[in-house]
Every structure is written in C-alpha cells, then in structure tokens.
C-alpha cells in the first residue's frame, strides 16, 4: 500500500512538472465553455438577404419595411434586377433573395392574390428552410392583418412556449456536450500517452521487472487523470452557473456519481488504446482521430441520433458519452432525479466495469 502511494506521488509529480500541458488541460474546458456558451447558438438570425422590388408600390414598400425590421433578416441592399442574384449567391454574400414582381399591389387588388418569389441558397439546407419559414411567417402576419380588415371568421391562433430554453440559446445543449467531449478526450488521450511514453522511453521495462504489482502501475497512472478530470468538472459547473446562468437543477451528488463513472470509463478506454500502440504518435492518432469526431457526432449534441441510419444508431449505443450526455441534460438542465436516469447510470457503470476489467486483463507485462 505504501508502495502505491509513493507511485501515485511520482505520477502526480510528472503531471504537475509539465506546466504547459497542465495549463492546456485546465485552460481547455474554461476557454471552450466560455466560447461555446456565448458564441454558439442554434437560432438562425441576421441572415443576409437581398430584396429585388420591380413594383415599388405601397404594399411592397411596407412588406420590405417589415422584413427589414425583423431580427431574422439583415437586408444588405436592394438590387435593381434579379440578374445579380446568382453572382451574389456564389460569392456567399447572401442567403436568400426576395423578389416582388411587377404590378404587385395592382394584382393584389384586382385579382385578390399576388405572389412573392423567394430563392434560398440551399447549399445549407437547414438555413434555407428556416429563412423561408421566417419570411412566410412575416407574410402570414401581413395576410392576417389584411384578413382582419375584411373580417375573416374562424381564426385559430397558436401560442408557442419554448420550454427549458426560451431564448433558444445554444448553451443549454452545448454545455453538457462539451462536458462529455472534454472529459472523454482528456481522459483517453492523457492516459494512453502517459503509458506509451514510458514504453517509448524504455522506463516501462524497469517498472515491469520491479516487484511492483501491475494493478498498482495502472492505478497510479490513472489517479492523476481522475483528479484532473474531477477538477475540470467542478470548473465547468461553476463557470456555467456563473457565466451562462445554467445552475445544476437536480442533485449534484447524482451528477458527480455519474460523472465519475463516465470518467472511469474513459480512463479504461485510454488504457486499452495504450496496450496496442507502440509510439506516442500512434496512441495520439488513435485517440484523437478515432475518438474526437465520432464522439462529437454520435453523442447526439450536434445531430439528433434518431435521424441516423440504424447501424449508426446501434453504434452510438456503444459510445459512453451518449449516455452521459443524457444524464447531464436530465439532471443538470431539467432537474430530474435518479428514477429517470437509473438506466443510463446502470449502462455507464456496466461499461466502466467491463472496460476496466478487460484492460487490466489485457495489460501486457512483457514488452515484446
């Protein structure tokens, strides 16, 4: 036991001596939470559009004014004709073009209908759909006013309530996602590199021929990363409460319990990766290339999992961060208790136990 403590001490010294890495380890979550919390948003607003008005009558003038005053649109300029639209799209200057045909209000008065032509740059399909919808809503409100003026019956109104996140900020979705991402990557990368580094430098051999138990080597390697991750977790939680107005609504104990399970899972993955890698470079590449994008995508914080093809949905079940993300969303943002996350907790516990057992069994006590 005394041996173990001495070894853990040694590992801590290694970690704390490397100031640059340490700075990065703690700077990363802080910078990311602040940047993403404030900068990322799912709401689409201030989209640049052009308006081509062939008609220039009172109705179009009023509609253009309503479009301009909406926070969704940023009318860059009026184009005299529609010929410049293609070039503007190609330069990426605008997202949508709104064209009022000639005799707009004449048509409206004489035939009772008039059509606005809208062209969206659908190379970004979601933005195209959203801006078209916004414009349709503005025109719809205008129509409703016309209708009210002429006494339209049977009006169904819709009262929308956005739950949990009324301003549609990006932060409530991204904070749990960044938590999962940062904890997962820091744990897997730091662990696998720390072990492979000893292999590369040859000091692993010395450790292995010593009477020191293998399990102690593993525990002493994992301990500093576990501590760093817990500190990181605390920093993230404090930052999101103070800056982003996202306090932990549910039980903080439950959140920490699940976080530690998740951290242990990630540490075990790092351990597993280190077994097969011969060089630090290989260990980094496999943990970064192999883990970063899949974790980002299959966790479900950027793209909804239910949209993915079935094989990928199955695959996402094997990604620990997916379950952790659900737990954080429910416990931290919605304030739900253990009864609603017991399944996810159980899965995380099972994963961490299984991976840890496998990595210990497979940990090689010989170099070749």
């Amino acid at each position, binding site marked *: 036991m005394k041996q173990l403590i001495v070894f853990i001490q040694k590992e801590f010294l290694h970690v704390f001596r*490397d100031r*640059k890495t340490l700075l990065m*380890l703690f700077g*990363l979550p802080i910078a*990311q939470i602040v*940047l*993403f919390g404030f900068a*990322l948003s*799912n*709401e689409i607003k201030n989209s*640049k559009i052009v308006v081509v008005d062939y008609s220039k009558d009172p109705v179009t003038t009023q*509609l253009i004014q309503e479009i301009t005053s909406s926070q969704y649109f940023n009318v860059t300029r009026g184009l005299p004709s529609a010929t410049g639209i293609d*070039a503007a*799209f190609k330069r*990426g200057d605008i997202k949508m073009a709104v064209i009022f045909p000639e005799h707009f209000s004449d048509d409206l008065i*004489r035939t*009772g*209908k008039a*059509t606005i*032509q*809208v062209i*969206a740059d*659908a190379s*970004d*399909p*979601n933005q195209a759909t959203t801006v*078209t*919808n916004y*414009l349709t*809503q503005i025109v719809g409100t205008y129509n409703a006013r016309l209708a009210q003026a002429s006494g339209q*019956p*049977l*009006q169904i*109104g*819709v*009262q*929308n309530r*956005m*739950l*949990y996140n*009324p301003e549609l900020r990006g932060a409530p*979705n991204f904070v749990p996602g960044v938590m999962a991402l940062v904890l997962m*990557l820091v744990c897997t*990368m730091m662990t696998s*590199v720390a072990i492979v*580094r000893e292999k590369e430098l040859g000091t692993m051999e010395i450790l292995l021929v010593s009477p020191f138990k293998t399990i102690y080597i593993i525990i002493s390697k994992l301990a500093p990363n576990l501590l760093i991750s817990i500190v990181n977790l605390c920093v993230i939680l404090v930052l999101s409460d103070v800056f982003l107005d996202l306090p932990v609504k549910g039980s903080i104990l439950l959140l920490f319990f699940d976080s530690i399970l998740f951290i242990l899972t990630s540490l075990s993955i790092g351990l597993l990766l280190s077994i097969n890698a011969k*060089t*630090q*470079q*290989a260990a*980094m590449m496999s943990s970064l*290339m192999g883990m*970063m*994008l*899949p974790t980002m995508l299959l966790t479900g914080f950027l793209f*909804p999992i*239910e*949209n993915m093809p079935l094989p990928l949905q199955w695959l996402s079940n094997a990604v620990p961060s997916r379950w952790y993300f659900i737990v954080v969303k429910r416990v931290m943002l919605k304030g*739900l208790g253990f009864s*609603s996350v017991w399944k996810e907790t159980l899965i995380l516990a099972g994963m961490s136990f299984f991976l840890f057992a496998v990595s210990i069994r497979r940990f090689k006590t010989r170099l070749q």
Partner: protein
Amino acid sequence: MRTLLFLLDKEFRQMLRNRQLLSTLLIAPLIQLILLPLAADYTVKDIAMTVVDNDHSTFSRKLVDKITASGYFKLAGYTTSYADGLAKVQQDKADLLLQIPPHFERDLVKENARDLYVAINAIEGTKANLGGAYLSSIIADFNSDIRLQWLGPVAGAASSGSSAAADPDATPQISVASSNWYNPLLNYKLYMVPAILVTLVTAMAAMQSAFNIVQEKESGTIEQINVTPIRKHWFILGKLIPFLVLGVVVFTLGIIAGWAFYGIWPLGSFVVLYGALVVYLFAMLGMGLLISTYSATQQQAMSLSFFFINIFNLMSGVFTAVDSMPAWAQYIVETFPPSHFIKIMRMVVLKGSGWSDIGYHLGAMAVIGLFLNTWAVLNYRKTV
C-alpha cells in the same frame, strides 16, 4: 537546393517506412468521411408529439390527423392533462406538446377565434425552431381547410392562398413561392461532406507537422541536425513539404470517396479547389510548426493542437452557422483558417464559385498563413 532534396528524401523514407502511422493517416480519414455524413443529418423529421385533447371534437381529431399525416410529426400518444404531457416531455418521450383547449370547436364557431397551446422542448434549439415553424404552417393550413368547409367554397377559396381561383370580391392574399437553389432536394449530406473533409485534413496537417518536429526533439535526433551545416529554412521546408503532399493526397482521396459514396462532384474548377487547398495547408502547417516551436514533448504538442483543433471544429461553421454568432465571436472566427476554407469548399463544390468569388477568403488565408509561418520561423532556434 541539393540539401533540401536530401532532406526530402529522408523525410519521405521515414514517412513511408512507418506503415502503421501511414495507414492511420490515410485510412482513418476515409472511413470517417464515409461514415460521418450519415450521422450528420440535421433534417428535422419525426418530431415526437403528445396531444392533450380536452375537446374531443371533429375539429380536434382532424387537426391531429393532419399534423401526423404531414410526415414531420409522429404521435407519441395522447395524455389527459397538461401536467401529464409535460412529464412526457421531461422524460424525453415527447419533444412537443399540443394542447387543444376544452370547447375548442364550439368557441371557434361561436367567437370566431380560439388559441391552441404548444409547448416545445427547446434544449435542442434547431429542432424546436423548425418544429414550431412546421406546426404553425400546418395549423394555418388546417385553418384554411375548415374555413373552406364552414363557409362554402367562395370565401374559403380565397383564403387558401395560391390555389384559389381569381375572385375580385375575396380577401386579398399574398402567397410565397419559394425555390431552393444549388440543392433543391435539401440534401444535408451535400452540405456536410465538404466540411467534414476539411476537418479531417486540418487534424492531419496541423498535428502531424507539429508531432514530427517534436518527435525529433524528444528522441534527440534534432541535435544531430542542428550541428550540421543545414540551414534553418531548408530544415523547415524539408519538414513541411512532405506533409503538404500528404495533405493533398488525403484531400484527393476524400474527394474521390465523396463522389463514390455520396455522388458529390465539385461543380467548380479543380484548379481553384487545389489552389485554395495549397494556401490552406500552408497556413495550417505554419500553425503546426509554431506549435512545435513552443513544445518540448509530444504530449505538449498534442495538448496544444488538440486545444485549437477542438475550437476550430466547433466554431468554424461546420455544425452551426457563423452568421448567428455574436459580433465579437465572428471577429475571432475570421482569424481561423478552417472557417475560410470550409466556406471556399462549400462555395466551389456546391455552387461552382470561381477565383473572384473566393478572393476574400483566399487572401485572408494567405495573410494568416504568412503571419503564422513568419512567427514560427522567427521562433525556431537551432539550439536546444
């Protein structure tokens, strides 16, 4: 010049000899490029809706039928009270709650106006946004339908918009005819594949050049180079050129994979595409070089590059629109080379933009690249 050739010879040999690394570098990005766009689908469909129907009238049933028939929503069951419905949203069993108030049909007919209540789980902003918009437009449609039924064809036809026959007495109605250019089927993969390719090239170019130099530092071989008469700039060029070549190879493989698996073939010219790629790689390799001058161990190089790549990936507009960020964040993003190259890729591949269209982004990348490389060269010391 001869020195450079020898150095290049050495670097390429080392690169080709390390089969494990080489296969990771070439195959891992390809697999990701093939698989990830399947995951990155943000088409909003199958929004789970729970309905609290306190009316149980013909109207309420028809409305629910119409919403579920649209294809955007699937019914996650009826609940008896608003509180029960809310509990369903809390447990993620439903994304959206529609409440039809008691006597909805009666009040609508009698008082000519009645509100419906909709509550949406807005943690996933985009889904909430689009879901709410879809639902509103379906309800507006339903509104026209029942008006048509209730009042007879004349007044109803006018209010159902563009399909209405010309009728001078009817309420004037403005309709919107929308068309989607460059991607009429709104295929999300067209949007994602070029951007994912950029993130893969980025991770490879910036990190590998950093690791490679630091590896020589760590294993001590850099000292051997330092005591030779090899000039600083030859050494740096000898390190950068192989990774430039590797970057171009990975990019080309990615373009081929995008065509083979997703049928995406650049609309614009390849000269423009590769010209922009070289400028981009110049900037990113400069960043790798800079990182290497500040790190003594591979672990440091890794943490530093991981820090930047993670921020690049999430802020350069791969997943969320840069336009909707606050102004200060947009200024920061302007200094990220990947954000410019992602824009260029999407423009050239999807819209067929040419040199003059991408001029600004190309210039920005060149300036950033020049800045990073100058900084790195000045900071590089031939001493340990």
